[in-house]
């Protein structure tokens, strides 16, 4: 059973719908027990980073750590990816999971001397796809995915793909069983469904 964590950050309907469309059994939960017993975990979420405070308050952070430690595949989407890092300048007092190093920062107001609109909304391309990524298996560089966000995660060795907007940022992160995507696979047409299928089949 894929446990989809509900922490009251936006709309889960689309993610659950996409997982079920792919034939997966998806269950929406706020229970640490469900998360500990999950075969896979999905942490969706759009909106403000401070919403992730509820994960700490409901003891879901510890449950997630334990599940990850025994190898349960985890997929964070949008704010769900950002939560894997140490935190975000969007909500300084709310810690992330600290699974990956670095903090999420806002897009700069300008880039290369030109104004940069924020939020970054729309279809942008995946670049620098890491050949060993299980999540991105079969997805070609240049494939388009749908974004809507104002904060982004830094690029480092665990980055599985980048997207360029005001410079490169982490489009996907992956190390062993812990994965995240900044874009919305449930809203990214065939490319997004292929990625979710990869996750379901891991």
């Amino acid at each position, binding site marked *: 059973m894929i446990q989809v964590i509900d922490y*009251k*950050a*936006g*709309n889960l*309907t*689309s993610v659950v*719908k*996409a997982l079920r*469309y792919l034939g997966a059994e998806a269950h929406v939960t706020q229970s640490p027990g469900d998360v500990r017993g999950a075969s896979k975990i999905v942490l969706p979420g*759009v*909106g*403000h980073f401070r919403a992730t405070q509820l994960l700490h308050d409901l003891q879901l952070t510890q449950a997630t750590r334990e599940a990850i430690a025994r190898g349960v595949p985890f997929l964070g989407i949008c704010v769900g990816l950002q939560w894997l890092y140490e935190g975000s300048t969007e909500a300084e007092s709310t810690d992330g999971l600290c699974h990956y190093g670095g903090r999420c920062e806002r897009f700069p107001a300008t880039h290369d001397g030109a104004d940069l*609109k*924020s*939020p*970054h*909304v*729309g*279809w*942008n*391309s995946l670049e620098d796809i890491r050949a060993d990524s299980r999540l991105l298996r079969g997805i070609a560089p240049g494939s*388009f995915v*749908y974004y*809507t*966000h104002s904060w982004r995660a830094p690029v480092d060795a665990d980055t599985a793909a980048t997207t*360029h*907007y005001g410079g490169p940022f982490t489009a996907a992160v992956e190390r062993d069983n812990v994965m995240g995507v900044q874009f*919305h696979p*449930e*809203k*990214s*047409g*065939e490319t*997004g*469904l292929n990625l979710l299928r990869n996750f379901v089949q891991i």
Partner: protein
Amino acid sequence: MLTKRIIACLDVRGGRVVKGIQFVDIVDAGDPAELAHRHAAAGADEIVLLDITATHEGRGTLIDTVKRTAAELFIPFTVGGGIRSAEDAAAVFEAGADKVSINSSAIARPELIGEIGANFGAQAVIVAIDARRNAEAPDPIADAEVYVSGGRKPTGLRVVEWAREAEQRGAGEILLTSMDADGTRAGFDDELTAAVSQAVQIPVIASGGAGNAQHFADVFGRGKADAALAASIFHFGVTDSWALKRELAISGVPVRL
């Protein structure tokens, strides 16, 4: 590279897709769910469903139509029409919409923008503005006026000022419809679109007047639009989004192909 979005718009009345010329002369164009899927397969980057009669006839949004349309749609899906409260918006999200578009209700009570955003995120709130140039004013663009109730009622609000206020109150995007251009297929109002786009940081979706690929290239270039909406141009098989975007790519517009 971030691409310019082509958004297929379904104007719905009584559960059927219709498209009027300047908001009158309604013609039946089909089933919303079927058309939404056809548009998605034909390369639309996003789908907007507007219940065009909801406000003045006082009907609620057609939740069943939204559910049916959203069921197997895996691109962004916006619903507008008749959303007057955060509860109305919640019902539409529950039915499968990713964003809501609010228009007259945001003007009647601007707090609504922030109330929906607080629960669902700013990215989920589109403020739609029906705009008409003010032909009598010395500067028809700066004095362009906001209309409500499907273009029936002038509000006295200036378009650019209202767009700025909507942004400050937490709108994620602006959907700007030129009432002058709507349904004419003679091109978008590029000047008005550019004025709004330069006044705000959030994306601006241009609407009204699409007739051919050059019109889209113009509104993305001169009009500085981030996205553009089209309805009747597609419904009757004039072209589809892939064909439109292939033409745009040749003109140097970044698009998803």
